[in-house]
């Protein structure tokens, strides 16, 4: 019987261990609404790359917030929140643009909150419905970037569609086949939205779908573990998709000078937003965190660290002039976001099934 007792003791010990290492997970299930200060805020975001998650966690800690950043692509983050709608894990979500946020709002997964800095941002960049369910923090251009050392400005493509329609670029641009990221999805959205056709499959004409086919057919597939800029530096490819705030740090790291293609349609613009996830048991903490995160000072610091273009007027004042200038020079594509929001998941599914090679 001694062995049995040992077994019981082991079980108990294991149970204790699990209890010991589940401070928030277990609690967030029970939904105790005591405001729970000091508990870990779980922050979902697609804006975690290049050290953002680590920086934010550390800065938040000095400001008195214990946060845990869970980073994934924009599409994946959205799907995760939707899938968890009935028992949310996240307390705060940021980094997604309003295409994703409007899906989240439609599924009733966002808790309305007007941050203390709401007056400092251009309302046109926020929730287009005017309900103020989510609020803008960072503006991001989604561009086709090319290696300016390899291609002169007049040799460079003038639009995404050139890449597959002009043989010169075949095999010279990087295609991305992991479609969970917001950057990739917005590029597809930016292309497909130009080919609206009520009779076409998922609202897009055959010609539009041919573009997607061309994209995959003539591109050079992204290499796992290898940054686009590393490949540009090595001469494997000359261009690929990029979000604007990612450019300066990469130029520096890989020694590549970037050219940005400016199609006459403009470039899709993603305004990253922040909101509270419906069902959080730490509403007050989440609100305080958002007030802190979107404030001019923090956004200015974020911009200084990650070259982002802030939305907060106070942060824009403090931001690097070249960043502000660069973004001011980018023409925004007039994307029919309602159309995109309605169809994006189906488009991505179709691309996954029929076009990804």
């Amino acid at each position, binding site marked *: 019987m001694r062995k049995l007792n040992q077994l019981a003791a082991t079980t108990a010990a294991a149970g204790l261990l699990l209890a010991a290492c589940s401070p928030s997970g277990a609690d967030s299930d029970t939904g105790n609404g005591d405001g729970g200060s000091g508990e870990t805020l779980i922050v979902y975001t697609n804006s975690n790359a290049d050290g953002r998650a680590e920086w934010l966690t550390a800065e938040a800690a000095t400001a008195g917030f214990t946060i845990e950043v869970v980073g994934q692509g924009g599409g994946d983050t959205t799907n995760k929140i939707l899938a968890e709608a*009935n028992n949310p894990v996240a307390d705060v979500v940021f980094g997604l643009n309003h295409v994703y946020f409007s899906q989240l709002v439609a599924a009733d997964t966002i808790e309305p909150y007007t941050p203390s800095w709401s007056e400092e941002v251009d309302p046109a960049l926020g929730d287009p419905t005017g309900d103020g369910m989510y609020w803008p923090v960072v503006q991001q251009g989604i561009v086709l970037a090319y290696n300016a050392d390899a291609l002169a400005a007049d040799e460079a493509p003038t639009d995404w569609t050139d890449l597959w329609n002009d043989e010169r670029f075949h095999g010279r641009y990087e295609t991305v086949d992991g479609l969970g990221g917001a950057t990739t999805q917005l590029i597809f959205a930016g292309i497909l939205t130009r080919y609206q056709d009520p009779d076409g499959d998922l609202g897009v004409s055959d010609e539009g779908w041919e573009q997607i086919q061309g994209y995959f057919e003539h591109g050079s597939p992204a290499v796992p573990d290898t940054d686009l800029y590393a490949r540009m530096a090595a001469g494997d490819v000359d261009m690929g998709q990029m979000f604007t705030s990612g450019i300066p740090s990469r130029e520096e790291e890989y020694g590549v000078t970037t050219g940005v293609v400016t199609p006459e349609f403009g470039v899709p613009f993603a305004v990253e937003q922040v909101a509270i996830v419906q069902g959080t048991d730490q509403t007050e903490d989440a609100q305080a965190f958002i007030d802190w995160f979107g404030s001019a000072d923090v956004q200015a610091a974020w911009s200084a660290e990650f070259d982002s273009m802030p939305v907060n007027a106070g942060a824009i004042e403090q931001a690097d002039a070249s960043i502000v200038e660069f973004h001011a020079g980018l023409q925004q594509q007039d994307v029919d976001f309602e159309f995109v929001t309605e169809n994006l998941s189906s488009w991505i599914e179709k691309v*996954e099934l*029929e076009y990804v090679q």
Partner: protein
Amino acid sequence: MNRSGVRGMLRSPFVIVTGVVLAWFVVTFLVWPNANLLIATFFPDGTLTLRAVDKLISSERAMRSLTNSFLLAVVLSVTVNAVGIFIVLVTKYFDIKGARLLWFGYASTFIYGGIVLAAGYKFIYGENGIATDVLLRFFPGLDPAWFTGFFAVVFVMTFATTTNHMLFVSGALGKVDQQTLEAAKSMGASDWTILWRVVLPMLRPVLFAVTILTFLGGLGALSAPQVLGGREFQTIAPMILTFSTSLTSRDIAALLALVLGVATIVLLVVLTRVEKGGTYFSLSKVSSELVKQKISNPVVNVVVHVLAYALFAVYTLPVVLIVLYSFVDSRAIESGELSFGAMSLDNYARVLGQSSGLRPFIVSVVYSGLAAVISVVGLIFVTRILSKYRNWLTTAVEYLLHIPWILPATMIALGLIMSYDHPNLLVGNIVLTGTTVILLISFVIGKIPFTLRLLKASFASVNDTLEEAASLMGARMMYIFRRILMPAVLPTALAVGALNFNSLLDDYDTAVFLAHPLFQPLGLVIKANTDGAVSLDARANTFVYTVLLMVITGVTMYLVYGRAMRPGKGRRRRAGRGVLPTSGGASVAPVPDASTRPGAGVTARTATQPSAEVA
């Protein structure tokens, strides 16, 4: 023993309590999630829709993935058997110099598998791997990314899944009667004839069973194709994962999972039929110990020796390198350099000293430990009833408990998500997704068939008369349970628990669907670290995790099998025998005395996880 009908059985309060819990568990976690998956795929709004089917059929990529999965399964059935039989023969049948050493090399797959093994191979043969560096020196024209695609997946999975051969085929070979061989020899049969016409036919039932496991492993493979398959070689399971994340595309994921499930069931049914047609009881009752055979042809002898040691190198290289790299600082790992000067215990200090480094390890240990304990303790009660009462009800329940064996892990995970991401009365209206419990439940589910079979064999070995005697002397049910049954079953129970623990420690296939983002087990962390783009320290941590895993698994394996693996006689044979009934839901290989051997069955590690374990 009591073979009473259902009514008699239900008179016992013990049976009623256990039965109610069991019934709830079976309905809630084994039947409903999978049924719901079916419904959600074909009847999302109550009417039949073939949207998912249409989508899938019109998708060239999906069709290619399906073909690839089947191709992988077929090719693996050949390659794994070829390598597996070879390593068994050179360690147990032929007289090969250093066979013991070879055995240890080949046995490296006992201590690591799945995602850990795939990651290890990628690290060594991958683009910046040390083996690739060496090869490039000899063949400068080689593509640094040569180790990817179909070839890489087959290569890795072939060497990852010979564990079954090491366990079962070795065991069966031990039962081959020396006298039969002598007889063949005296009639003038050559080495080759004896092997081909006498030995291999005797191994047929085992090979049959092992081939099925291999086939199923190939079909549902997740981590190896994900890590090494690249663009050219995509298979079903990773695709299921992709589509399962999006609510709108889940039906496609479910359909793909169904295809896997149906293929598995069909295969099992067909093979069981085929198997029943043959008679394989060619094993003599009073066998004399097999003596290792000398290879008489000197050329063949040399060739076999060379091959054996080449394979030895393939098996051991990753393990040796992982152990060495775990001591090297992260910068040196990055550059692929390996110098003894750069070695230190820093990596270990970081993993063991920092809570963030140790965390995934603890999460895995706790999950595996709890799942192991719950599955064994729970099933001890269940098995007790199942083995005491035999009637239509217990038979039916027993079949239901085998569901996790028939269905791929991905399908079960998906079924759980789709069934319990909203309040459901079956689980008290609690939403299970987004909790830490759902992964634990899934772990327990996955371990049921294996645990059940071995415990049942163990219960069957308890001498009935003891129990009857105790009962006649007035002992109560619980007293009998505690003082007579438990001591007899405990060794098996502990061993099964240990094996369950081991196999869950590096789980990836289930965790990737169900893990709570804050409590990510080791498998996920190791997978994330194979993606590059992680910090150097994270990569170094992976090696430490792997070594720690190997140590834990190695120790457990030794405790469980240690004695059986020694060159000593009887035990080894016994091990090989008891194992067979565990191979794949329907008992594929006829083994006469399997269920009567105490603790004998406890030899299956891989056999129990056709889809989960096998990379």
